[in-house]
Protein backbone atom coordinates (compact mmCIF):
# COMPACT_ATOMS: atom_id res chain seq x y z
CA UNK A 1 0.00 0.00 0.00
CA UNK A 2 1.15 3.55 -0.69
CA UNK A 3 0.13 6.03 1.98
CA UNK A 4 0.59 9.73 1.29
CA UNK A 5 0.26 12.11 4.21
CA UNK A 6 0.10 15.90 4.22
CA UNK A 7 2.16 16.46 1.06
CA UNK A 8 3.25 20.05 0.45
CA UNK A 9 5.28 21.41 -2.43
CA UNK A 10 5.98 24.97 -3.56
CA UNK A 11 7.94 26.47 -6.42
CA UNK A 12 8.95 29.93 -5.27
CA UNK A 13 5.75 31.76 -4.38
CA UNK A 14 3.50 29.13 -5.99
CA UNK A 15 2.15 26.65 -3.47
CA UNK A 16 1.43 23.72 -5.81
CA UNK A 17 0.51 20.90 -3.41
CA UNK A 18 -1.35 21.93 -0.27
CA UNK A 19 -1.36 19.07 2.20
CA UNK A 20 -2.55 16.11 0.11
CA UNK A 21 -3.27 12.89 2.00
CA UNK A 22 -4.50 9.70 0.36
CA UNK A 23 -3.67 6.04 -0.12
CA UNK A 24 -3.39 3.58 -3.01
CA UNK A 25 -4.14 -0.12 -2.64
CA UNK A 26 -2.64 -3.26 -4.12
CA UNK A 27 -4.38 -4.79 -7.15
CA UNK A 28 -6.35 -1.64 -7.87
CA UNK A 29 -6.03 1.01 -10.56
CA UNK A 30 -6.24 4.39 -8.88
CA UNK A 31 -6.66 7.54 -10.89
CA UNK A 32 -5.53 11.02 -9.94
CA UNK A 33 -7.67 13.44 -11.91
CA UNK A 34 -7.99 17.19 -12.12
CA UNK A 35 -7.74 20.12 -14.48
CA UNK A 36 -4.46 21.19 -16.04
CA UNK A 37 -2.48 23.03 -13.38
CA UNK A 38 -4.21 21.27 -10.49
CA UNK A 39 -0.92 19.69 -9.36
CA UNK A 40 -1.34 16.16 -10.74
CA UNK A 41 2.07 15.95 -12.38
CA UNK A 42 3.86 17.46 -9.39
CA UNK A 43 2.02 15.00 -7.15
CA UNK A 44 3.05 11.97 -9.21
CA UNK A 45 6.64 13.28 -9.51
CA UNK A 46 6.75 13.56 -5.70
CA UNK A 47 5.61 9.93 -5.45
CA UNK A 48 8.35 8.93 -7.89
CA UNK A 49 11.00 10.86 -5.99
CA UNK A 50 11.74 13.14 -8.95
CA UNK A 51 10.60 16.14 -6.87
CA UNK A 52 11.28 16.44 -3.15
CA UNK A 53 8.26 17.69 -1.17
CA UNK A 54 8.84 20.29 1.57
CA UNK A 55 6.52 18.56 3.97
CA UNK A 56 4.67 15.27 4.30
CA UNK A 57 5.50 11.59 3.98
CA UNK A 58 5.15 8.92 1.31
CA UNK A 59 5.04 5.39 2.69
CA UNK A 60 5.69 2.49 0.27
CA UNK A 61 4.61 -0.64 2.19
CA UNK A 62 6.25 0.57 5.38
CA UNK A 63 9.24 2.29 3.74
CA UNK A 64 9.03 6.05 4.21
CA UNK A 65 10.73 7.51 1.14
CA UNK A 66 12.24 10.57 2.81
CA UNK A 67 13.86 8.42 5.50
CA UNK A 68 15.65 6.09 3.06
CA UNK A 69 19.33 6.51 2.22
CA UNK A 70 20.37 6.85 -1.41
CA UNK A 71 21.02 3.10 -1.87
CA UNK A 72 17.65 2.21 -0.35
CA UNK A 73 15.98 4.80 -2.59
CA UNK A 74 17.67 3.25 -5.62
CA UNK A 75 16.50 -0.22 -4.56
CA UNK A 76 12.95 1.07 -4.08
CA UNK A 77 13.01 2.73 -7.51
CA UNK A 78 13.83 -0.62 -9.06
CA UNK A 79 10.44 -1.79 -7.77
CA UNK A 80 8.71 1.08 -9.57
CA UNK A 81 7.57 1.02 -13.19
CA UNK A 82 6.68 4.27 -14.88
CA UNK A 83 4.86 5.04 -18.11
CA UNK A 84 5.52 8.64 -19.09
CA UNK A 85 3.11 10.88 -20.98
CA UNK A 86 5.33 10.96 -24.06
CA UNK A 87 6.46 7.34 -23.50
CA UNK A 88 10.07 8.50 -22.88
CA UNK A 89 11.54 5.67 -24.92
CA UNK A 90 15.28 5.87 -25.61
CA UNK A 91 15.54 7.07 -29.23
CA UNK A 92 18.88 5.42 -29.86
CA UNK A 93 17.65 1.95 -28.87
CA UNK A 94 15.36 -0.50 -30.59
CA UNK A 95 12.16 -1.70 -28.94
CA UNK A 96 14.07 -4.74 -27.66
CA UNK A 97 16.88 -2.52 -26.35
CA UNK A 98 14.42 -0.27 -24.54
CA UNK A 99 12.62 -3.14 -22.84
CA UNK A 100 15.87 -4.95 -22.03
CA UNK A 101 17.48 -1.80 -20.60
CA UNK A 102 16.39 -2.27 -16.94
CA UNK A 103 17.41 -5.96 -17.10
CA UNK A 104 20.85 -4.99 -18.44
CA UNK A 105 21.27 -2.37 -15.74
CA UNK A 106 20.06 -4.22 -12.67
CA UNK A 107 20.15 -7.98 -13.19
CA UNK A 108 22.83 -10.59 -13.72
CA UNK A 109 20.65 -12.61 -16.09
CA UNK A 110 22.17 -14.31 -19.14
CA UNK A 111 21.42 -12.93 -22.60
CA UNK A 112 18.96 -15.76 -23.35
CA UNK A 113 17.12 -15.23 -20.04
CA UNK A 114 16.82 -11.52 -20.81
CA UNK A 115 15.59 -12.24 -24.34
CA UNK A 116 12.98 -14.66 -22.99
CA UNK A 117 11.76 -12.06 -20.51
CA UNK A 118 11.61 -9.34 -23.19
CA UNK A 119 9.71 -11.64 -25.55
CA UNK A 120 7.30 -12.49 -22.75
CA UNK A 121 6.47 -8.88 -21.82
CA UNK A 122 6.26 -7.74 -25.44
CA UNK A 123 3.83 -10.59 -26.11
CA UNK A 124 1.90 -9.55 -22.99
CA UNK A 125 1.39 -6.04 -24.42
CA UNK A 126 0.48 -7.53 -27.83
CA UNK A 127 3.63 -6.38 -29.61
CA UNK A 128 5.33 -9.31 -31.26
CA UNK A 129 6.84 -8.05 -34.50
CA UNK A 130 8.46 -4.82 -33.39
CA UNK A 131 11.64 -6.02 -31.63
CA UNK A 132 14.06 -4.40 -34.04
CA UNK A 133 12.16 -1.20 -34.75
CA UNK A 134 13.20 2.18 -33.33
CA UNK A 135 10.71 4.34 -31.37
CA UNK A 136 10.46 6.83 -34.26
CA UNK A 137 9.12 4.03 -36.48
CA UNK A 138 6.23 3.22 -34.11
CA UNK A 139 2.74 4.69 -33.79
CA UNK A 140 1.72 6.48 -30.57
CA UNK A 141 -0.20 3.44 -29.35
CA UNK A 142 2.71 1.10 -30.04
CA UNK A 143 5.10 3.44 -28.22
CA UNK A 144 2.80 3.33 -25.19
CA UNK A 145 2.79 -0.48 -25.31
CA UNK A 146 6.59 -0.52 -25.40
CA UNK A 147 6.65 1.91 -22.46
CA UNK A 148 4.30 -0.40 -20.52
CA UNK A 149 6.45 -3.41 -21.43
CA UNK A 150 9.55 -1.59 -20.17
CA UNK A 151 7.73 -0.58 -17.00
CA UNK A 152 6.70 -4.15 -16.14
CA UNK A 153 9.80 -6.03 -17.30
CA UNK A 154 11.33 -5.97 -13.78
CA UNK A 155 8.09 -7.20 -12.15
CA UNK A 156 7.44 -3.93 -10.33
CA UNK A 157 5.38 -3.63 -7.16
CA UNK A 158 4.23 -0.15 -8.14
CA UNK A 159 3.18 1.13 -11.56
CA UNK A 160 2.78 4.84 -12.24
CA UNK A 161 1.35 6.20 -15.48
CA UNK A 162 1.29 9.88 -16.44
CA UNK A 163 -1.60 10.42 -18.85
CA UNK A 164 -0.98 7.09 -20.59
CA UNK A 165 -3.58 7.64 -23.31
CA UNK A 166 -2.98 11.28 -24.17
CA UNK A 167 -2.67 11.78 -27.92
CA UNK A 168 -4.28 8.43 -28.72
CA UNK A 169 -7.51 7.81 -30.58
CA UNK A 170 -10.42 6.72 -28.33
CA UNK A 171 -10.25 3.06 -29.36
CA UNK A 172 -6.50 2.74 -28.74
CA UNK A 173 -6.88 4.74 -25.51
CA UNK A 174 -9.38 2.19 -24.20
CA UNK A 175 -7.09 -0.68 -25.23
CA UNK A 176 -4.20 0.90 -23.29
CA UNK A 177 -6.44 1.54 -20.26
CA UNK A 178 -7.65 -2.06 -20.28
CA UNK A 179 -4.12 -3.37 -20.70
CA UNK A 180 -2.97 -1.40 -17.64
CA UNK A 181 -5.90 -2.68 -15.61
CA UNK A 182 -5.31 -6.30 -16.68
CA UNK A 183 -1.64 -6.03 -15.73
CA UNK A 184 -2.58 -4.52 -12.36
CA UNK A 185 -4.85 -7.47 -11.57
CA UNK A 186 -2.56 -10.10 -13.05
CA UNK A 187 0.57 -9.04 -11.13
CA UNK A 188 -1.34 -7.69 -8.11
CA UNK A 189 0.49 -4.36 -8.19
CA UNK A 190 -0.37 -0.85 -7.05
CA UNK A 191 -1.18 1.27 -10.09
CA UNK A 192 -1.53 5.04 -9.95
CA UNK A 193 -2.62 6.82 -13.13
CA UNK A 194 -2.53 10.52 -13.71
CA UNK A 195 -5.30 11.46 -16.11
CA UNK A 196 -7.82 14.02 -17.18
CA UNK A 197 -9.52 11.63 -19.56
CA UNK A 198 -13.03 10.88 -18.33
CA UNK A 199 -13.23 7.74 -20.48
CA UNK A 200 -10.37 6.32 -18.39
CA UNK A 201 -12.17 7.26 -15.20
CA UNK A 202 -15.31 5.39 -16.31
CA UNK A 203 -13.36 2.48 -17.75
CA UNK A 204 -10.79 1.58 -15.10
CA UNK A 205 -11.11 4.02 -12.16
CA UNK A 206 -11.40 1.78 -9.12
CA UNK A 207 -10.32 4.65 -6.91
CA UNK A 208 -10.40 8.26 -7.99
CA UNK A 209 -8.61 11.16 -6.32
CA UNK A 210 -9.74 14.56 -7.57
CA UNK A 211 -7.24 17.41 -7.19
CA UNK A 212 -8.17 21.05 -7.44
CA UNK A 213 -5.76 23.98 -6.95
CA UNK A 214 -3.27 21.62 -5.28
CA UNK A 215 -5.76 20.23 -2.76
CA UNK A 216 -7.59 16.93 -2.63
CA UNK A 217 -11.14 18.06 -3.34
CA UNK A 218 -12.74 14.61 -3.44
CA UNK A 219 -12.02 10.88 -3.53
CA UNK A 220 -14.14 7.82 -4.21
CA UNK A 221 -14.91 5.13 -6.77
CA UNK A 222 -16.25 5.50 -10.30
CA UNK A 223 -19.70 4.55 -8.98
CA UNK A 224 -19.50 7.32 -6.36
CA UNK A 225 -18.68 9.87 -9.02
CA UNK A 226 -22.22 9.53 -10.47
CA UNK A 227 -23.79 10.20 -7.08
CA UNK A 228 -21.58 12.92 -5.70
CA UNK A 229 -22.88 16.41 -5.17
CA UNK A 230 -19.40 17.88 -4.92
CA UNK A 231 -19.65 20.83 -7.26
CA UNK A 232 -15.96 20.87 -8.18
CA UNK A 233 -16.11 17.22 -9.25
CA UNK A 234 -19.38 17.45 -11.16
CA UNK A 235 -18.33 20.58 -13.04
CA UNK A 236 -15.08 18.85 -14.06
CA UNK A 237 -16.40 15.38 -14.81
CA UNK A 238 -19.62 16.44 -16.46
CA UNK A 239 -18.26 19.35 -18.46
CA UNK A 240 -19.20 17.63 -21.74
CA UNK A 241 -22.80 17.17 -22.89
CA UNK A 242 -22.22 13.46 -23.39
CA UNK A 243 -21.23 12.85 -19.78
CA UNK A 244 -24.09 15.05 -18.53
CA UNK A 245 -26.50 12.76 -20.39
CA UNK A 246 -24.74 9.63 -19.12
CA UNK A 247 -25.09 10.85 -15.55
CA UNK A 248 -28.73 11.76 -16.04
CA UNK A 249 -29.48 8.32 -17.47
CA UNK A 250 -27.61 6.64 -14.59
CA UNK A 251 -29.53 8.60 -11.97
CA UNK A 252 -32.88 7.98 -13.71
CA UNK A 253 -32.12 4.28 -13.85
CA UNK A 254 -31.49 4.23 -10.11
CA UNK A 255 -34.76 6.03 -9.19
Amino acid at each position, binding site marked *: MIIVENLHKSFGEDHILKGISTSFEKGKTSLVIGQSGSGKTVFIKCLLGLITPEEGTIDFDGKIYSQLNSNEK*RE*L*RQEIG*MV*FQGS*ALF*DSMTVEGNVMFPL*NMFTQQSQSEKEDRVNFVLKRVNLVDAHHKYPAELSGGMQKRVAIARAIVMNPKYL*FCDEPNSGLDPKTAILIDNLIQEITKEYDIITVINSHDMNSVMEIGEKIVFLQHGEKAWEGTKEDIFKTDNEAVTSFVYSSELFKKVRQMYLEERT
Partner: protein
Amino acid sequence: MVKEVFKKPTKWPIMKSLIFKEIDELIFNSLGIIVFISLFIGGVVTIQTALNLENPLIPVSLIGFATRQSVVLEFAPTFTSIIMAGKVGSYITSSIGTMRVTEQIDALEVMGVNSLNYLVFPKIIAMLLYPFAIAIAMYMGILGGWMAGVWGNFTSSADFIEGLQMDFDPYHVTYSFIKTLVFAFVIATVPSYHGYFMKGGALDVGKASTTSFVWTSVVIIILNFILTQLLLG
Protein backbone atom coordinates in the same frame (compact mmCIF):
# COMPACT_ATOMS: atom_id res chain seq x y z
CA MET B 1 27.20 18.18 -11.09
CA VAL B 2 30.76 16.89 -11.61
CA LYS B 3 30.65 15.14 -8.20
CA GLU B 4 27.43 13.31 -9.18
CA VAL B 5 29.02 12.22 -12.48
CA PHE B 6 31.56 10.12 -10.59
CA LYS B 7 29.09 8.68 -8.05
CA LYS B 8 27.11 5.42 -8.32
CA PRO B 9 28.81 4.13 -11.49
CA THR B 10 26.92 2.25 -14.19
CA LYS B 11 27.81 -1.45 -14.67
CA TRP B 12 31.14 -1.74 -16.46
CA PRO B 13 30.00 -3.80 -19.52
CA ILE B 14 27.35 -1.16 -20.25
CA MET B 15 29.71 1.74 -19.53
CA LYS B 16 32.35 0.20 -21.81
CA SER B 17 29.96 0.12 -24.77
CA LEU B 18 28.84 3.70 -24.02
CA ILE B 19 32.46 4.89 -23.96
CA PHE B 20 33.23 3.26 -27.33
CA LYS B 21 30.07 4.80 -28.80
CA GLU B 22 31.10 8.25 -27.55
CA ILE B 23 34.68 7.84 -28.83
CA ASP B 24 33.23 7.12 -32.24
CA GLU B 25 30.78 10.03 -32.04
CA LEU B 26 32.97 12.69 -30.42
CA ILE B 27 36.47 11.86 -31.70
CA PHE B 28 36.40 9.77 -34.90
CA ASN B 29 33.43 11.62 -36.39
CA SER B 30 35.29 14.91 -35.85
CA LEU B 31 38.52 13.90 -37.57
CA GLY B 32 37.29 14.92 -41.03
CA ILE B 33 36.59 18.53 -40.05
CA ILE B 34 39.79 18.69 -37.96
CA VAL B 35 41.93 17.54 -40.91
CA PHE B 36 40.18 19.93 -43.31
CA ILE B 37 40.50 23.00 -41.06
CA SER B 38 44.06 22.25 -39.99
CA LEU B 39 45.31 21.82 -43.57
CA PHE B 40 43.93 25.19 -44.62
CA ILE B 41 44.90 27.05 -41.46
CA GLY B 42 48.48 25.78 -41.80
CA GLY B 43 48.48 26.91 -45.43
CA VAL B 44 47.17 30.38 -44.56
CA VAL B 45 49.75 30.86 -41.76
CA THR B 46 52.54 29.95 -44.20
CA ILE B 47 51.29 32.29 -46.94
CA GLN B 48 50.82 35.22 -44.55
CA THR B 49 54.25 34.71 -42.97
CA ALA B 50 55.88 34.47 -46.41
CA LEU B 51 54.14 37.62 -47.68
CA ASN B 52 55.33 39.58 -44.65
CA LEU B 53 58.99 38.59 -45.03
CA GLU B 54 60.26 41.56 -47.02
CA ASN B 55 63.68 41.93 -45.41
CA PRO B 56 66.25 39.83 -47.38
CA LEU B 57 68.34 39.43 -44.20
CA ILE B 58 65.63 37.29 -42.60
CA PRO B 59 66.12 33.64 -43.61
CA VAL B 60 63.31 31.99 -45.60
CA SER B 61 63.42 29.07 -43.17
CA LEU B 62 61.58 31.36 -40.74
CA ILE B 63 58.38 30.49 -42.67
CA GLY B 64 58.58 26.87 -41.48
CA PHE B 65 59.54 28.00 -37.98
CA ALA B 66 56.58 30.43 -37.72
CA THR B 67 54.18 27.84 -39.10
CA ARG B 68 55.34 25.24 -36.57
CA GLN B 69 55.13 27.63 -33.64
CA SER B 70 51.70 29.00 -34.60
CA VAL B 71 50.20 25.59 -35.32
CA VAL B 72 51.66 23.70 -32.34
CA LEU B 73 51.22 26.43 -29.72
CA GLU B 74 47.91 27.96 -30.70
CA PHE B 75 46.06 26.95 -33.83
CA ALA B 76 45.91 23.19 -33.25
CA PRO B 77 44.94 23.18 -29.57
CA THR B 78 42.90 26.38 -29.22
CA PHE B 79 41.43 27.09 -32.63
CA THR B 80 40.43 23.43 -33.10
CA SER B 81 38.89 23.40 -29.61
CA ILE B 82 36.70 26.39 -30.48
CA ILE B 83 35.53 24.54 -33.59
CA MET B 84 34.93 21.42 -31.48
CA ALA B 85 32.97 23.48 -28.96
CA GLY B 86 30.58 24.16 -31.85
CA LYS B 87 30.54 20.70 -33.39
CA VAL B 88 30.84 18.36 -30.41
CA GLY B 89 29.43 20.80 -27.83
CA SER B 90 26.20 21.42 -29.70
CA TYR B 91 25.82 17.67 -30.30
CA ILE B 92 26.22 17.00 -26.56
CA THR B 93 23.82 19.77 -25.50
CA SER B 94 21.16 18.90 -28.04
CA SER B 95 21.30 15.14 -27.41
CA ILE B 96 21.11 15.48 -23.62
CA GLY B 97 18.64 18.39 -23.89
CA THR B 98 16.33 16.33 -26.10
CA MET B 99 16.47 13.53 -23.55
CA ARG B 100 15.48 16.06 -20.87
CA VAL B 101 12.58 17.46 -22.92
CA THR B 102 11.25 14.01 -23.81
CA GLU B 103 11.50 12.83 -20.16
CA GLN B 104 14.13 10.19 -21.02
CA ILE B 105 16.32 11.51 -18.19
CA ASP B 106 13.37 11.25 -15.78
CA ALA B 107 12.87 7.67 -17.01
CA LEU B 108 16.51 6.87 -16.15
CA GLU B 109 16.15 8.44 -12.70
CA VAL B 110 12.89 6.60 -11.96
CA MET B 111 14.59 3.31 -12.83
CA GLY B 112 17.29 4.11 -10.27
CA VAL B 113 20.02 4.92 -12.81
CA ASN B 114 22.44 7.74 -11.97
CA SER B 115 21.64 9.67 -15.14
CA LEU B 116 24.59 12.06 -14.82
CA ASN B 117 27.03 9.17 -14.61
CA TYR B 118 25.28 7.33 -17.44
CA LEU B 119 25.21 10.33 -19.78
CA VAL B 120 28.25 12.47 -18.93
CA PHE B 121 30.96 10.09 -17.67
CA PRO B 122 31.40 8.27 -21.02
CA LYS B 123 31.79 11.63 -22.74
CA ILE B 124 34.52 12.74 -20.33
CA ILE B 125 36.40 9.45 -20.81
CA ALA B 126 35.97 9.57 -24.60
CA MET B 127 37.38 13.10 -24.64
CA LEU B 128 40.60 11.82 -23.04
CA LEU B 129 41.44 10.79 -26.62
CA TYR B 130 41.10 14.41 -27.74
CA PRO B 131 44.91 15.01 -27.64
CA PHE B 132 45.12 12.28 -30.30
CA ALA B 133 42.88 14.40 -32.53
CA ILE B 134 44.96 17.49 -31.76
CA ALA B 135 48.17 15.63 -32.65
CA ILE B 136 46.60 14.95 -36.05
CA ALA B 137 45.63 18.64 -36.26
CA MET B 138 49.27 19.64 -35.61
CA TYR B 139 50.56 17.25 -38.25
CA MET B 140 47.97 18.33 -40.83
CA GLY B 141 48.52 22.03 -40.07
CA ILE B 142 52.25 21.70 -40.71
CA LEU B 143 51.59 19.57 -43.81
CA GLY B 144 49.17 22.25 -45.06
CA GLY B 145 51.85 24.87 -44.45
CA TRP B 146 54.42 22.84 -46.37
CA MET B 147 52.02 22.33 -49.28
CA ALA B 148 51.12 26.03 -49.48
CA GLY B 149 54.75 27.12 -49.05
CA VAL B 150 56.35 24.73 -51.52
CA TRP B 151 53.62 24.49 -54.14
CA GLY B 152 53.01 28.24 -53.95
CA ASN B 153 56.74 28.90 -54.49
CA PHE B 154 57.11 30.83 -51.24
CA THR B 155 59.87 28.57 -49.94
CA SER B 156 61.76 25.43 -50.84
CA SER B 157 60.99 22.15 -49.12
CA ALA B 158 64.50 22.09 -47.57
CA ASP B 159 64.15 25.63 -46.13
CA PHE B 160 60.68 24.84 -44.74
CA ILE B 161 61.89 21.65 -43.05
CA GLU B 162 64.96 23.45 -41.71
CA GLY B 163 62.61 26.04 -40.17
CA LEU B 164 60.46 23.29 -38.69
CA GLN B 165 63.50 21.86 -36.90
CA MET B 166 64.92 25.21 -35.81
CA ASP B 167 65.03 25.77 -31.99
CA PHE B 168 62.52 23.00 -31.37
CA ASP B 169 61.49 22.79 -27.72
CA PRO B 170 59.57 19.56 -26.91
CA TYR B 171 58.02 21.32 -23.90
CA HIS B 172 55.88 23.35 -26.34
CA VAL B 173 54.19 20.11 -27.42
CA THR B 174 53.72 19.11 -23.76
CA TYR B 175 52.20 22.54 -23.07
CA SER B 176 49.82 22.07 -26.00
CA PHE B 177 48.71 18.64 -24.81
CA ILE B 178 48.15 19.89 -21.24
CA LYS B 179 45.94 22.66 -22.67
CA THR B 180 44.18 20.15 -24.87
CA LEU B 181 43.30 17.88 -21.95
CA VAL B 182 41.85 20.81 -20.01
CA PHE B 183 39.86 21.92 -23.07
CA ALA B 184 38.65 18.34 -23.56
CA PHE B 185 37.18 18.34 -20.05
CA VAL B 186 35.52 21.72 -20.74
CA ILE B 187 34.09 20.52 -24.08
CA ALA B 188 32.62 17.42 -22.38
CA THR B 189 31.20 19.07 -19.27
CA VAL B 190 29.98 22.61 -20.11
CA PRO B 191 27.65 21.47 -22.95
CA SER B 192 26.49 18.53 -20.80
CA TYR B 193 25.55 20.96 -18.03
CA HIS B 194 23.55 23.14 -20.46
CA GLY B 195 21.74 20.09 -21.86
CA TYR B 196 21.09 18.36 -18.56
CA PHE B 197 19.70 21.35 -16.70
CA MET B 198 17.76 22.91 -19.56
CA LYS B 199 14.06 23.65 -19.19
CA GLY B 200 11.36 24.03 -21.81
CA GLY B 201 10.66 22.46 -25.18
CA ALA B 202 12.23 21.78 -28.54
CA LEU B 203 12.92 25.46 -29.24
CA ASP B 204 14.81 25.73 -25.96
CA VAL B 205 17.07 22.83 -26.99
CA GLY B 206 18.32 25.04 -29.85
CA LYS B 207 18.78 28.00 -27.50
CA ALA B 208 20.64 25.82 -24.99
CA SER B 209 22.98 24.62 -27.76
CA THR B 210 23.81 28.20 -28.72
CA THR B 211 24.33 29.24 -25.10
CA SER B 212 26.52 26.22 -24.46
CA PHE B 213 28.70 27.06 -27.51
CA VAL B 214 29.16 30.64 -26.28
CA TRP B 215 30.05 29.57 -22.73
CA THR B 216 32.33 26.74 -23.82
CA SER B 217 34.22 29.16 -26.10
CA VAL B 218 34.47 31.79 -23.35
CA VAL B 219 35.77 29.24 -20.83
CA ILE B 220 38.29 27.88 -23.38
CA ILE B 221 39.61 31.37 -24.20
CA ILE B 222 39.96 32.36 -20.54
CA LEU B 223 41.61 29.05 -19.60
CA ASN B 224 43.91 29.39 -22.60
CA PHE B 225 45.14 32.71 -21.23
CA ILE B 226 45.55 31.38 -17.66
CA LEU B 227 47.31 28.16 -18.75
CA THR B 228 49.66 30.02 -21.07
CA GLN B 229 50.56 32.38 -18.26
CA LEU B 230 51.10 29.45 -15.86
CA LEU B 231 52.96 27.10 -18.19
CA LEU B 232 54.94 29.46 -20.43
CA GLY B 233 55.00 32.72 -18.48
